[in-house]
């Protein structure tokens, strides 16, 4: 009896199909390496560096600011220098970071109506909705309606401040530490600071 080979079912191995942008990037990268402008190792190191920037890092910064009053003051005064020293990560560069402090009567939310400027040095890659035309065009025109679609209803006596990142500054929202978090550790605090809390489309909650 002929031996029948039995294959396990598995997901088909996908060939990656590159779009024009990916092909362009591959070509330019290969050229830069071939012409000794960059090394492959440098490219990889930069990709690793970018991957290390993510909302978890931002959440640690916010939790530290809630925990340590002196760090909070330095963070507001000179954000990138303060983060660089405190967390030992290179932050300073051509772009500046502004920390927008939420207050009981002031809620901040960030957008880039022109493109998708975002505090990447701290939070990494922006979410798709942040780059979408709908968010960018509506949050300046009707911020309360947009925030309510995110599940955030703000009372009328809270002033909404929309910061449009039009130029060389990037914005990070420093949310209010919620009631009920007294005695929490810094790690516990960081766990409730989501990416959206630092964009201003959400607020941290203790439950």
């Amino acid at each position, binding site marked *: 009896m002929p031996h029948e080979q039995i294959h396990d079912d598995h997901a088909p191995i996908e060939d990656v199909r590159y779009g024009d942008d990916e092909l362009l990037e591959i070509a330019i990268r290969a050229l830069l390496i071939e012409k000794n402008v960059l090394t492959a190792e440098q490219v990889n190191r930069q990709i690793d560096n970018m991957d290390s920037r993510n909302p978890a890092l931002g959440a640690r910064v916010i939790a530290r600011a809630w925990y340590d009053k002196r760090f909070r003051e330095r963070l507001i005064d000179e954000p990138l220098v303060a983060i660089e020293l405190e967390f030992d990560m290179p932050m300073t560069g051509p772009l500046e970071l502004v920390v927008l402090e939420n207050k009981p009567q002031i809620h901040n939310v960030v957008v880039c109506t022109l493109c998708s400027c975002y505090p990447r040095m701290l939070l990494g890659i922006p979410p798709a909705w942040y780059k979408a035309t709908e968010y960018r065009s509506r949050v300046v025109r009707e911020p309360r309606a947009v925030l309510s679609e995110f599940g955030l209803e703000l009372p009328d006596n809270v002033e909404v401040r929309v910061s449009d990142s039009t130029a060389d*500054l990037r914005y990070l929202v420093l949310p209010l530490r919620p009631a009920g978090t007294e005695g929490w550790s810094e790690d516990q605090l960081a766990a409730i600071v989501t990416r959206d809390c630092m964009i201003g489309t959400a607020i941290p909650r203790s439950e």
Partner: protein
Amino acid sequence: MDEKLIRFEPGDKVRVRRLSPETHCRTPCYLRGSVGTVRNIAGIFRNPSELAFHRPGLPKLPLYRVEFRLCDVFCSQSVNDKIFADIYDHWLQPIAEDG
């Protein structure tokens, strides 16, 4: 910071010029013609309209953080809400020049 370049101080009322450049700029259309208040001087930066074409972007320009009342920019019921945007010097005119 080159203080000589600074034309506006915090608290100054300014109007965003109604210009329509066909090339890259950083002043959103929805703010053109609006009146706002300078809140602070963000610094002096190279001109992004020039940098976009790989030119040096010099001379550098002051950049102001300007506050607008939402209801002055869009017909809106939220009279207390605000928009803050960063606007380069050459896009702003003193309110007194309005005529």
